[in-house]
């Protein structure tokens, strides 16, 4: 093989390696943000259930929902800078972003309801957002 052929082969190999590692890093970032979102949503659902059963106080529940809303917003922010190396990564990031945004809305709505009405109407929106997050998460983990 001519030297120029070797160099070209090396460049192509390096390019493929970089591309793969970039994609792996992006997937890792998505999984991390989605795991945080899962944790925040599960905590919120559990806190509201305990509040409905009168096992916890309004102050503790309000504080927890406020903390989890911040965590969801952080998870959403963490998804924005994820670099797109392929169409697959873009699709994954969009799905993750949609799931996390649904979670942000659900946690904020629950927190506002508790602050204004002293009760959360239902946890359906939270549970649905949780399922959405879990679905994307297991898809990403399966693809790793």
């Amino acid at each position, binding site marked *: 093989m001519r030297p120029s052929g070797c160099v070209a082969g090396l460049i192509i190999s390096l390019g493929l390696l970089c591309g793969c590692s970039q994609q792996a890093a992006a997937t890792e970032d998505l*999984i*991390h943000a989605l*795991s*945080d979102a*899962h*944790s925040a949503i*599960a*905590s919120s659902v*559990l*806190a509201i259930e*305990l509040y409905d059963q*009168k*096992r*916890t*106080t*309004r*102050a*503790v529940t*309000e*504080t*927890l929902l406020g*903390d*989890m809303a911040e*965590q969801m917003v952080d998870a959403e922010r963490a998804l924005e800078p994820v670099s797109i190396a392929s169409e697959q990564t873009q699709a994954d990031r969009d799905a993750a972003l949609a799931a996390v945004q649904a979670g942000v809305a659900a946690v904020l709505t629950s927190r506002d309801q508790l602050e204004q009405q002293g009760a959360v109407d239902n946890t359906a929106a939270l549970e649905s957002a949780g399922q959405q997050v879990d679905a994307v998460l297991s898809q990403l*983990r399966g693809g790793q």
Partner: protein
Amino acid sequence: MKKSFGVALGILTAIGGFVDIGDLVTNAVVGSRFGLSLGWAVVVGVIGICVFAQMAGRVAAVSGRATFELIRERLGPRVAVLNLSASFMINLMTLTAEIGGVALALQLVSSVDYLLWVPFAALAVWLVIWRVKFSIMENVAGLVGLLLIGFAVGLFLLSPDWGELGRQAVQGVSTDTEKVSTYWFFAVALFGAAMTPYEVFFFSSGAVEEGWTEKDLAQSRANVLVGFPLGGLLSLAIAGCAAVVLLPQLISVTALSQVMLPVAMAGGKLLLAVIILGIVAATAGAALETTLSAGYTIAQFLGWPWGKFRPPAQAARFHLLMIICLIVGVGTLLTGVDPIQVTEISVIFSAVALPLTYLPILIVANDPEYMGEHVNGQALNGIALIYLVIILAAAIAAIPLLIITGAGQ
């Protein structure tokens, strides 16, 4: 009778005073992510703090002088300034975390944002240091902090599968999501949280404040060798509660409010109230101890008059220094920095500073000029040397692990 009461009181306050925001947060985080698989790190840390705290207490009781004074005298100002810088900075970070912890606990009671509580928490700490007698301050904070036993009660009420918890402690937890580096990061964090340097400085200076002599050595040993291990069991109970309720749901603890979920599930509002009161007392007690330790370390190094046994007018620089430290802590928290993150970072940096804190204590405890017949025995020196190796390994590994894992993310 009076002596037995004193010993019992000392042990109870040692148990209640053992857990601070660092232990609380780190154990809850670890329990929610690794179950009880890092319980061994708590055990290693508790044995380590027992070894060195009883040494520091003995040095103070026998020589009538606090550790830092002797370190400077025995090792010279150059070595002592290294020790001072590391210990003081870690102490300041811990003080900031503790005030943040008090504010977070008060938010759980009031739902008023913790940032609004921060100045009041610091003011309360200063007022107590200024006005309240040392023994009352120490005993009240320690005894109310004992309410954290509620975590152990909660763990029993949750009726966990004890066999599974035991299996976690021995074999570990198989998890697809956690890396080996993160496991070791938290092992170092738990070790650092258990062996936080301020505990030894406070214990030693407190012995001088209370006028301990050689006659009090037995009580000093009982406080450390019974009180601290029982405090360590509380730490394991916190991790256990998180392991039983949060780990199966893949909830990672990132906020103090999440630590309340297993408690509410186990014992409802009553247990919740008990635990929140315990957290306020434990963090406030630790805030008092770290504030005093900040004053102790600098004043003892510079040879200023120090101690609560003196009227504030006779130890003006000591008191001024503590006020400055409180202001720095409050200022840091008011920038909006997350107190939980400050706590996590402070326990890791504690691990980094450990060799600088504990090696000088070992040297002074072996000096017959200060200790007379009470120098360390061979067995104790053997254990202490093994611990110095562990401490050195933890100190070397701490920063690389912090960077590799992104602070345990």
